[in-house]
């Protein structure tokens, strides 16, 4: 009897948590892809949240527009990104840095980013490794 109650109680808790998990999942899932992958599957990603990883093309950052624009690239593809977020752009974001932009595709084919994360170009480390160990 106690066992039965226990199983029912446990099942209720687990089911409730699973539901919360599912709701949270729908809310926060984002596709994490590179610019190349993006180019090959752009059609499937309309209306979905995407995290796009690539390198900022040197000289492409245009701060004169009302919304800052820049181009990110991976091996063979490039895409124009328009920043529509309100957060301050991190200091590490500059020509050549690795950027992760989160947002979705805009009507004109550009990518509208609500958030930008940037890492320093890892060239420093690579150069150091090359110089020291090869």
């Amino acid at each position, binding site marked *: 009897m*106690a*066992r039965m*109650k*226990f199983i029912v*109680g*446990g099942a209720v*808790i*687990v089911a*409730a*948590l699973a539901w*919360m*998990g599912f*709701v*949270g*999942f729908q*809310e*926060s*899932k*984002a*596709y*994490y*892809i590179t610019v190349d*992958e993006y180019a090959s*599957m752009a059609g499937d990603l309309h209306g979905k949240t995407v*995290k796009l990883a690539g390198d900022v093309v040197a000289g492409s950052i245009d701060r004169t527009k009302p919304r800052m624009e820049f181009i990110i690239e991976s091996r063979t593809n490039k895409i124009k990104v328009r920043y529509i977020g*309100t*957060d*301050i752009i*991190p200091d590490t974001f500059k020509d050549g840095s690795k950027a992760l932009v989160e947002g979705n595709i805009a009507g004109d084919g550009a990518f509208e980013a609500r958030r930008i994360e940037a890492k320093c170009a890892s060239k420093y*480390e690579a150069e*150091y490794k090359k*110089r*020291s*160990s*090869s």
Partner: protein
Amino acid sequence: MAEFGNFCLLFALCLSLYALFAALIGASQRQPRIVKSAEKAAFAAAGCTTLSFAALLYLTFTNDFSISHIAESSSRDLAVFYKIAAIWGAHDGSMLLWVFFTALLCAIVIYQNRSRYRDMMPYVLAVLMIDLCFFLSLNFFLSNPFKQLTQVLADGTLQKFMPADGRGLNPLLQHWAMVIHPPILYLGFIGFLIPFAFAIAALITGQIGTTWIRTTRRWTLLTWLLLGAGLLLGGKWAYVVLGWGGYWGWDPVENSSLMPWLMGTAFLHSVIIQERRGMLKIWNTILIMLTYLLGVFGTFITRSGVVSSVHAFSDSGLGHFFLIYMAAVLIASLGLIAARRSIMKSERQLDSLLSRESAFVFNNLVLVAACLAVFFGTMFPVFSKWITGVQITLDAPFFNKINIPIGLILLLLTGVGPLFAWRKTSLESLRRAFFWPAISAAVVVAVVFIGGIRHFYFIICMALCTFVLVSIVEEFFKGALVRRETKGESFAAAVVNLTLKNKRRYGGYIVHFSIVMIFAGLAGNAFNRETKAQLATGQELRIGS
């Protein structure tokens, strides 16, 4: 000095391999002398890793930048304080710290039990040495902290190379917490090896009693405390150093240290049932196995680059070895549990839903659910990549959505669990026990509500915090009153003596009290407002309403 450190590391590996096989042979042939020699080898291995660690310390302080690890993480102008941190500021050296701690803990455990549990100890020793051998070989062969820099000359020959200065410690890591945080956290991960080793030894020798639990209780508690302290320090560091505006970001590396903590918390609670009531034996063994494995998994996440994180070392190519090791431990432990399941039957059944036992079981269920949710969320990018070929990431909203209700259920159980009696609680005694906590909680809800706060989770959290707080105060108060009556002590002395006489119970309440403090702090997050903007001179910005 580099050769010396390197040699010590290799010698420690040989010694621990010897200790592993000698322990197993000694046990199977019932030769106490061979087991003794295995124990001595384990001591020697600890000595060797200590020397190896000391060698790296010396090399760091003498600015020997011919060592790759030191050139990468230290520099001439780095303060002495941070030179210590530089040892674990990069991958190879932090691995040596890990190995050093593991060997040291193994030696202490073996010394503590040198004349106890003679039938179980060889197997304990063997499990400890398997872990030590694994990490020592990774450290020596794949991430050697004594590796020297070389350069290729024009004629194609290799030559040693020593840069004029090192790259220095990443400025983000130059924070006081960085000097104590990794050592504390590592001890918090490694310590779970000890109860795990005793659990496996108990399975092999068929002594599924409570010996292995009682004898490792203090290790488990200490490890749990250090892991918790490590988590809090990590939060402090992130809050001060990283510009996230927060102390917790559900980052993979943070998650991977939270998971063993959650599982370890479940273990700490559920072994009490095995001790008191002889139930949940298989469950407890699985819990400690998972806690240990999650600790290894945490190092795997941090060092393999399988998921990207702000705290992680860059990809070190060790991932496969970790996966193989974890799979092997999992399969071997589960096989052992399956083979012994006939003697691991519960001695009793659950009597009632309103009992201490069932509160503990619910506590376990909820903690393991939280752990699974965190695991799922952390690994989802990897799983989704396997299954659909596209990486899908999950962010804070997912983790919060599921873990806030879990946390509140846990807080509720923290309050009501200790008020339930073992086996069965009568409604009358529940009414008496719940009276003041429930009234106080209701008053707090009313005050908060009148104060104009309508945030649902905040109100619930405050109510539960009050409930737990009042129930703890009441427990101390009632106990002290009884002592004052019977022993004639002053009230203050009665409170102190009460705690010292029954450390387990009242110590537990003190920990619960601190958990309430943490929850109250987390609840404040509901009112956190963060706005980032660029302002021109004279321009104003209003935050919140």
